[in-house]
């Protein structure tokens, strides 16, 4: 029996589909349902974990500050020995079970698909919006496509990744903070205009 579709975490934010300045260069904020799996290597098993993820998902686990991409899966560095695997939303449970079996004794596998929320911020002014909420240098010279970081965005912890040169950023935030972050993004984007969408599934570029 397949589970019913998950509900959006933004029902509580009574926001219209668009807003802010009408003449501006509007940004798009999309909620992107995704399967998110946190993997943390057992003591001394980092190499085994890297080999196993390469075998299972064809993903080469990235170094700090980077992300890796293979097909419709991606991996982000989270902490020493720890990564976040991002995969399409459909049938996440099966992927969790598969990884848990493949990584038994190698890594802790924890499903965070409901615990984190992916917001994709895209448009010409996406960097200008983030400059109001986050203190990292997101200039293309220092934060290129594929770069990732965990930092405060709008006062809450986010793992972010530059998906493409639109630019489009994925902001991965604790689900209980998702509405807060959305409201912060909308306020910061007010001068440019904004629109909200719900993407089918996060498509890593």
């Amino acid at each position, binding site marked *: 029996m397949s589970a019913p579709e998950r509900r959006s975490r933004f029902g509580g934010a009574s926001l219209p589909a668009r807003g802010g300045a009408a003449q501006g260069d509007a940004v798009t904020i999309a909620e992107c349902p995704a399967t998110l799996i946190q993997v943390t290597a057992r003591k001394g098993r980092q190499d085994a974990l890297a080999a196993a993820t390469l075998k299972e998902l064809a993903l080469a686990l990235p170094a700090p500050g980077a992300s890796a991409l293979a097909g419709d899966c991606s991996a982000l560095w989270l902490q020493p020995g720890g990564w976040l695997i991002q995969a399409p939303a459909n049938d996440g449970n099966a992927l969790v079970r598969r990884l848990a079996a493949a990584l038994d004794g190698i890594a802790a596998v924890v499903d965070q698909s*409901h615990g984190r929320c992916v917001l994709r911020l895209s448009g010409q002014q996406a960097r200008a919006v983030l400059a109001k909420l986050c203190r990292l240098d997101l200039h293309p010279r220092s934060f290129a496509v594929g770069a990732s970081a965990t930092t405060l965005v709008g006062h809450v912890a986010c793992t972010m990744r530059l998906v493409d040169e639109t630019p489009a950023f994925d902001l991965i935030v604790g689900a209980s903070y998702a509405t807060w972050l959305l409201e912060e993004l909308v306020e910061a984007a007010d001068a440019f205009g904004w629109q909200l969408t719900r993407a089918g599934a996060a498509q890593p570029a």
Partner: protein
Amino acid sequence: MSGRRLPAGGHIDRERHLSFSFDGRRFFGHPGDTLASALIANGVRLVGRSFKYHRPRGIMTAGPDEPSALVELREGARTEPNSKMTEVALYEGLVARSQNRWPSLGLDLMAVNSLAGKLIGAGFYYKTFMWPKAFWEKVYEPLIRRAAGLGRAVDRRDPDHYEALHAHCDVLVVGSGAAGLAAARAAGASGARVILCERDDLLGGGLLLDPAHDAWRRQTIAALEAMPEVEILPRTNVFGYYDHNLLGAIEHAGDHLAEPAPHQVRQRYRTFRATEVVLATGASERLIAFPGNDKPGVMMAGAALAYIHRFGVAPGERAVIFTNNDSAYATAHALADAQFDRIVLADSRAASACADDVKARGIDVRFGVEVAHYGGDRVTLRARNGASDRIPADLLCVSGGWNPNVHLASQSGARLRWHEQIASFVPGEPVQAERSAGAARGVFGPGNAARDGAEAGAAAAIAAGFKPGAAFALPDADRPETPLEPLWEVRAQGKAFVDLQNDVTTEDIRLAHREGFSHIEHAKRYTTHNMATDQGKLGGLVGAAVLAEARGEPLEKVGLPTFRPYTSPVTIGALAGRAIGEHFQPVRRTSLHDWHLRHGAAMQPSGAWLRPFYYPKPGEDIWDAIFREARAVRGSVGICDVSTLGKIDLQGPDAATFLDRLYANAFSTLAIGKARYGLMLREDGIAFDDGTTARLGPEHFLLTCTTANAGPVLEHMEFYAQTVWPDLDVQFSSVTDQWAQMAVAGPRSRLTLQKVVAGLDLSNEAFPFMAVGEATIAGIPVRVFRISFSGELAYEVAAPSGDGETVWEAIIAAGEEFGIAPYGLEAMGLMRIEKGHAAGPELNGQTTAADLGMGRMVKKAGDVVGRVLGARPALANPSRPRLVGIRPTDPAKRLRGGAHLVSEPGAGKSLGWVSSVTQSIELSQWIGLAMLEDGAARQGQLLHAVSPLHGESVEVIVTSPHHIDPENARVRA
């Protein structure tokens, strides 16, 4: 009326007219004017009254160094006190009022203070209003505040928005004069990311006062605008230089407008993290102290130049220029251009190389003279030989030399160095990655400054890792100057000011020295010299020079007081940005948030979370709702959103060992599929947090902790895993947001869940108290825990949070026939006090396991966090306050949290305190939990709960903390 608009010149738009009002009178100006230039153009001369003596004051400067021309700007909620007219860009409909005058600017009754001036010198208030002490708050302070206040703050909500913006760059250039423009261009040409900040709305600094260099200014700006990695920020004042090359600024994005445009902010708080910084902050002209140097009509020579060339305004008709240096000769030329009737240039030096050019224009140049007095539109000139001359003048231009603006360099940590030729301080060796350029380090003149700036910009780019770019044209080199001769004070009869905004005179400085406040920092605080909003830009060094003379020491040794942020006043609203009101701090919402809202929950902040406190029905008051919800649980079944509990997934071969050390009680003995209550201690032996931990597999646990401590517990675990027991192989992560958790509690909770739970036998035999299992509800995989906080038969169901509402609604549908009620935090609190569970008020950072009645839980053997320090005598003392229950002996009486327990009313010694109170639905009276000395031994005793705050004293009986079901039978039913 002596000021007037000139027929040509200035960076103003003469085609357009703007109307504005000052003190209720309507005037006209042009775009490009400041309020100050527009008022001068309209012949207004008297613009304010001074702080202490209420002396009439005019416009002294053309920038942020203005001490006198302060106004209350705008109206209603947008009212801004103490705005400097010289920095207020004119806009259509501007409204401004003068300050510190009563009843009107022309007739100010407080000016009597000026006559009593001899009596209210420095330190007057300290000396006079000392006693009787009781008078201070009620009499003296209100009196002084009424007499002294400048503008008034507004207590209405600011209708405008502010925001923060964080930027990074390779080279930050502060200031856009000749040095700043050249530095930005040189750095930009290298390909470096450059940000150029200019506090003014036009770029150019001193170049704006020099028509001969306007072409170079425009050409350089155009070149900068064509560089994609150069960002130019006008109206942006850099206010502070902090560690690690972090600088702060305010961008006055909308201050030049009546109201910000829709969706735009009024001001923007900016931070810059720069690899290299070039400080091209220019210099400020300094005052000379002489009697009457504060009168309307006195203006800095550079400001007069600015009014003529920048704004096309003549600030008078007959002028005397008083100088000790060559810079004022440019002012003389400008006054001649502006067709002044008479110009006298009084130079205190013996000669100047600039004199011939000026004399050729018919200007009366006199050497070796000083201004001994100004007043009544007459200047008293005194020659070295004692001869004096009185000259009519409606404008007295003063130049005592130029002080480099070293505020930011000094804040960055660089020590200041005395520069003999300019008689001022310049930045010394850099401490951070910064360099000063141009006038900011004593290199004056557009040609010299531009060369200095270009070198600094190129050097900064190279230091940031770039190769120098192509060279570009610079202004011609400047002519050599005749050296300045320092002149700080002209001694004569009358008040000579060193700080106009705070009304500090040369005599005040000497008084401070006589009374022992001879250090520059002491003299500053004693006299308030340098402490006004202009921060001593005008007369700071003059005051220091007067002090140096009094001390008989060189000025270099006396020095200046410390420079601190902010370089000019900053609106608190700009620093707060968007973080006000509901955006003050992050808000967490559970996945059931919308359901709670749809069902009328009264939501309240609980830490960062918003949680339902109760669900009132029509006609119910708070207690009605709480009692109804609690009765549903005690009598049948209720459901509560407990998703906010901290949840931590713990895995690894050493997970059980880790828990054995982390908690005071053992977990390695816990069977798979069971949960256990755990108590965590801090290293110092005080109780830290509690919760249930379930064993999901041999190497897999799920910890829960209190909502408030979810973050701190994770940090606590990280600390021990990384630093104390790095040998243990454990992995853990927060899964708080992954799971929606709901408590289903009450005698009919089993019947309710049995209707919807699939794949799990919930019978008491198969699934006893503290059992844990997996199941599905409405097709959703869930975890079920048989744990209870209410004291009733109860379960907690955890569902993936995205499916939380589906599961919640399925359980409510199943419980409908039993009258299931959602219950909030208040009913939960009521029931936990009835049951005697310790919570936040008892786990208050002062209590031990034994204090909470959990001493027997602590393992007898093995190392545990908190064991060693928990054995200290004071913590092991058996008569420490212990957790007890209390009830009023008169059931009609209420209890108060925070009340003290005493043996009898009026007894001075507190035996303990009341930590939690509620109205019990089972006992039909107020009950409470308390921490009481020798608590266990006092059960059955009568004490008094006193609350002096409320004037209450209630007789109470000491009981077990477990007001209901002390045998714990219900949870096992």
